[in-house]
């Protein structure tokens, strides 16, 4: 069977409440007097009319400045944020490697957390029973696995989270800037594992600011800017476009320093911070 992701004309906006959620009192007063505090809510268009079709075999890199909507698009594909307009169609089982370690219960042991986390990722108990040994082996936490994870170091925590997420063979893999933490040995192991996952899954979407990684792992790249897809094509071309035109657009000086031209071996740093544009409605 083939995997496919289709995003059709999807828009998504966030409401930002200046003084948190409206209190009951204000809502009632607003209803009675018929006027709403318009300043209290600001709307922010996170995604604007996105059209994208990803087919089996695509290793899609998603690049863009901070606040461009990359992670939001990934979360929309997972189903966390439903689009306000348009639609999202997904064919195939998604394995999101987004926000690893979500749902860890610090009072529980590593082993119990494997089951809990697996369950949250939609895997059955039987499935996790079969994977448990592999996850423990991969994380190299055999000695500590029955200890509550609040006693884990942050590196051990990260190792466990990565191992749970990365042990299955995904049909559709969504990766948001996670590359395992831990000692050099584990990072190498995790990188190898990621490479394997990229090659074995039907579709991969990778959000990363590491352009070398994108060039290395992807066969297609989209560039996002302010909630829109502004470029779609082969990696080298798109990375050049991003570096020269998109990153340049905002901060000409910073862009050159931050994103070295393709082929330079020095790892690029984080993309320049850009304030998301607020649209007052």
């Amino acid at each position: 069977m083939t995997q496919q992701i289709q995003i059709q004309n999807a828009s998504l906006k966030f409401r930002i409440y200046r003084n948190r959620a409206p209190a009951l009192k204000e809502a009632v007063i607003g209803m009675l007097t018929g006027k709403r505090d318009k300043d209290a809510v600001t709307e922010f268009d996170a995604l604007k009319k996105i059209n994208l079709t990803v087919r089996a075999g695509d290793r899609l890199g998603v690049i863009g400045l901070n606040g461009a909507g990359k992670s939001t698009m990934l979360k929309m594909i997972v189903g966390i944020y439903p689009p306000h307009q348009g639609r999202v169609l997904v064919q195939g089982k998604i394995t999101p490697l987004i926000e690893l370690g979500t749902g860890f219960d610090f009072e529980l042991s590593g082993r119990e957390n494997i089951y809990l986390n697996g369950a949250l990722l939609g895997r059955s108990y039987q499935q996790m029973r079969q994977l448990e040994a592999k996850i423990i082996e991969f994380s190299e936490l055999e000695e500590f696995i029955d200890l509550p994870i609040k006693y884990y170091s942050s590196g051990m925590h990260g190792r466990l989270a990565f191992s749970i997420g990365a042990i299955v063979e995904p049909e559709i893999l969504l990766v948001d800037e996670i590359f395992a933490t831990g000692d050099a040995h584990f990072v190498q192991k995790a990188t190898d594992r990621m490479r394997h996952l990229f090659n074995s899954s039907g579709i991969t979407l990778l959000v990363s600011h590491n352009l070398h990684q994108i060039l290395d792992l992807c066969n297609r790249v989209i560039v996002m800017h302010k909630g829109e897809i502004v470029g779609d094509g082969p990696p080298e071309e798109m990375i050049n476009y991003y570096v020269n035109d998109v990153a340049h657009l905002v901060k000409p000086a910073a862009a050159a320093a931050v994103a070295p031209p393709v082929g330079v071996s020095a790892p690029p740093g984080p993309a320049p911070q850009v304030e998301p544009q607020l649209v007052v409605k």
Partner: protein
Amino acid sequence: MRSAESTELLDKPNERTSDAVAAHGDVAVGAGVVSKSAAGARSVGAGSVDAGGTGSVDSVGDSSVDDFDFAAFDTKESIFSYICRSLAELKNIKFALASFVVNNLRRRYRRSVLGFAWSLLNPLLTMAVMTAVFSLLWHSNPKSFGVYVFTGLLPWTYITDSIMMGSQSLVQSEAFLKKVYIPKSFFPLVAVSTETANFAFSLASLMLMAMIVGVHMNWTVLLVPAAIALLFLFNFSVTLILAVATVYFRDLTHIIKVGLSTVFYLVPIIYNLEMVPEKYRVLFLLNPVYYFIDLFRALIYVGQVPDATRWAIPGLITLITLTIAFYTLKKTDKDLIYRL
């Protein structure tokens, strides 16, 4: 080598879950938005659920594992197909549900010396105090009065605890809901299920205790699980409504707290409905909670099988609250995440 192994491992469980997901795929309803057919992956109008005749039903390809299609806000999905979809989604993560409930229970008593015994001791001590005070006050037989109080007090505690814990569950799990895809009814369900387990333990142990003390129990106590199931559905639906409402109006948390402590005196738990002057009795009969407590009393304290109306009234109430709950959830399903 590793890869070959895990593919093999995963093959079977995937097949196992596919029927549940296929059902899920079937009820995914399109809103009739632009359907750009690509690579012939979709067949329009092939679905099996009628969405009120307005939206076209799309089924994506060969409806395989975890296919889904969520369209925009203008989706015309019927309440029935929404409920089916919600239940299918909950079924998919039933293990997470069980694991959350067990962890909640475990955490509640972790590090306390008596552990689970507290779920028994707590109501027992409350009951002992109440019985002592009120049997002195009203000169009633402490033994049977004790049973009378606990058959009212335990369901009441169950209702209030469910509402208190559950109504905040959506707000409190914001971090979760924004990071992983989980049906919105999951966390209220976890809260209510935890309280249900607690309630069942307390009820069973207190009935046991009553029998040891020498209070006669009729065979009608065997019908108690049916009453628990009914009260569970009622609690779940009320909690769901309040949990969604709390997302929109955070002040509700405080209102609920005050409200529940007021309602306590309006439920005949420590007194008898016969003690209430005739002209006010109607007010007490308007309280939906009364009918559930009445059911437990009939089964445990009176020892008779309640007649049809005594089942029908709480049943009807539950049906109404359940409908409102799912209607509320459906209305807010796609907006809720943006309000957290």
